[in-house]
């Protein structure tokens, strides 16, 4: 009996339908945007929340994890804005151009919009949704039928849209600081994008945080267009509150001879799903992805990555590291696809997990899908505990056990942090890691 039977809708699925029916008239955008939203919601409703029998969500069963649909967060009031004063403290001293998104809404008056470099434009997604071209970019390529991306298209209310003109090299990094202040159950759907013209360059930092114990859901999507010969460094730090659910979709289309370096660092959130869809669309493109997750308690963090080599002579490197303590679970699914004709593709993927307790779990699933015959592709995964021999060697030199463990964990994560080009970001993330290690004591 293999008949496809649609199971009864869960409370959360019914909740999302009610939420959409109630919100669709008030969400930003004209009639054509509304049509896109309805389409997207229908796509979501047709499949429901993804569960463990959906391969791309095999280890992150949202049907089980999402128990209800939270009300949409209201636009931040004065108190909420005031509560963000200490946001992203780890990056505060770095003189990046900080743009603040509070409870899902871009707040220009708390953002650094002064002396914008010529050729750089920044605007609110909520405003852009009112323009004629909105339906195009709202829908474009949002990860096929992915239900989380479809939900984002249906509900996206605000975010930041950044464009950099061709050949403009922006020296000062832009920092998108996403802060949740809500202490009542709430949901935030943001859509942001970055368009980098040919030969342009920028560093984009994205941080996500919120109060511990607060029951909130973040669904954030970011779309990037990296022009030919452009250079983009994107750093994403996920340090949501202890009860939060964070689902993020990143789509990047990378042009010929461009260099794209993606860094992810996850320490916070009860359930985190970072899904990345990279398309190396032109010849000679380089894309490197470095990710680290440091997890404890009952945290669940899933990184699911698709790298699509669509043109000849492109190169990608994927390094994923997870440090998993207590009863936490780290998931890495990585798929490298080499399209027909994408000869001389050079792609390598490595996933390594370090388990610090008997109950910690790591699921690593690398996949290669190759339709060209002159390519170099490889992948590997390892999962293990801290090496007792190494620990004994350090202790035999007088280093106490916890410190010896910290040194070995630091060494393990170091490969990801060392790949950051900027000293200030390396220091900031090293500090994030050290704070996490101190939390273990």
């Amino acid at each position, binding site marked *: 009996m293999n008949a496809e039977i649609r199971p009864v809708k869960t409370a959360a699925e019914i909740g999302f339908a009610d939420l959409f029916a109630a919100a669709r008239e008030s969400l930003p955008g004209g009639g054509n945007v509304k049509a896109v939203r309805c389409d997207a919601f229908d796509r979501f409703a047709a499949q429901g929340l993804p569960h463990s029998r959906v391969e791309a969500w095999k280890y992150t069963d949202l049907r089980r994890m999402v128990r209800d649909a939270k009300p949409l967060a209201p636009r931040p009031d004065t108190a909420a804005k005031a509560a963000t004063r200490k946001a992203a403290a780890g990056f505060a001293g770095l003189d990046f151009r900080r743009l603040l998104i509070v409870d899902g809404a871009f707040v220009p008056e708390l953002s650094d919009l002064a002396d914008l470099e010529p050729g750089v434009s920044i605007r609110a997604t909520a405003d852009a949704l009112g323009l004629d071209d909105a339906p195009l970019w709202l829908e474009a390529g949002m990860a096929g039928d992915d239900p989380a991306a479809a939900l984002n298209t249906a509900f996206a209310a605000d975010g930041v849209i950044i464009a950099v003109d061709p050949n403009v090299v922006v020296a000062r990094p832009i920092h998108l600081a996403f802060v949740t202040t809500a202490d009542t159950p709430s949901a935030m759907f943001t859509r942001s994008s970055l368009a980098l013209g040919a030969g342009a360059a920028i560093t984009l930092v994205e941080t996500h945080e919120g109060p511990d114990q607060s029951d909130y859901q973040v669904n954030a999507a970011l779309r990037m267009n990296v022009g030919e010969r452009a250079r983009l460094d994107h750093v994403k730090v996920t340090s949501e509150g202890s009860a939060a659910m964070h689902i993020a979709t990143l789509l990047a289309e990378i042009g010929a001879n461009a260099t794209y370096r993606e860094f992810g660092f996850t320490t916070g959130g009860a359930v985190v799903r970072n899904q990345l869809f990279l398309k190396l669309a032109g010849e000679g493109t380089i894309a490197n992805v470095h990710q680290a997750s440091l997890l404890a308690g009952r945290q669940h963090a899933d990184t699911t990555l698709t790298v699509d080599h669509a043109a000849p002579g492109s190169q990608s490197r994927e390094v994923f590291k997870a440090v998993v303590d207590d009863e936490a679970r780290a998931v890495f699914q990585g798929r490298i696809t080499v399209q027909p004709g994408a000869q001389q593709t050079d792609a390598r993927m490595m996933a390594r997990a370090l388990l610090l307790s008997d109950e910690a779990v790591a699921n690593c699933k690398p996949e290669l899908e190759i339709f060209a015959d002159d390519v170099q592709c490889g992948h590997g995964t390892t999962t293990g505990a801290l090496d007792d021999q190494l620990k004994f*060697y350090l*202790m*035999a*030199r*007088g280093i*106490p056990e916890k410190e010896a463990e910290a040194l*070995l964990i630091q*060494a393990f994560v170091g490969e990801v942090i060392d790949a950051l080009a900027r000293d200030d970001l390396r220091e900031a993330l090293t500090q994030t890691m050290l704070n996490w290690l101190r939390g273990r004591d």
Partner: protein
Amino acid sequence: MTALLDIRGLKAEIDGRQILNGLDLTVNRGEIHAIMGPNGAGKSTLSYVLSGKPGYEITGGEVSFNGEDLLAMDPDERAAKGLFLAFQYPLEIPGVATLTFLRTALNAQRKKRGEEELSSPDVLKRVRELAKQLSIDPEMLKRPLNVGFSGGEKKRNETLQMALLEPKLCVLDETDSGLDIDALRIVADGVNRLRAADRGMIVITHYQRLLDYIVPDVVHVLSAGRIVKTGGKELALELEATGYAQYQSEAA
């Protein structure tokens, strides 16, 4: 005055196999003791049991170090009290720079002893001086600990650690293994510089060759987990000529 190290009737096993079988050994300050013996006699086990490696079960006897119960201490505590094991096979630790490791170890010991921690430039200065004495390329200090080091470089690095940490008791486990004659001389010179009236050493070796360079005061033969013969440095030469066969049958 109490002995630096006093081992009485030590019995130890691993995975249910008894390796040390009632071992007695006393080392006083200023003395160098060589422990020789056939493979499987328990030489490395002795070094691991003294340094506190997990996995060994002590089933009898006691070890007093400077009058304190050594076996009750964790490995890091033993190190801070002045015990140093130069490993037969030093481990490689990718991602931990040699200098970071040296500084962390030195300051961890100082902290535990209630001494002031040294600043990074101070540590660097001391390490550089010692590295020069041991013909260690300063660039090597920036590399991950022992990663890609040759056998000789690893042993010189062990000797550097020993010199930096200034232990009261040095246990050298088969320091000569994997060394060519030039490297052996450099390492032996490094060890000899550490000879001092208040420091003891246990040199564990299978071959007499090392003892031409590090001349012991006392030589012991270890067989089947016990000291079966003790003599002066001439005992080592005798063993070189006759082999260990007679002691193996004696113990059996």
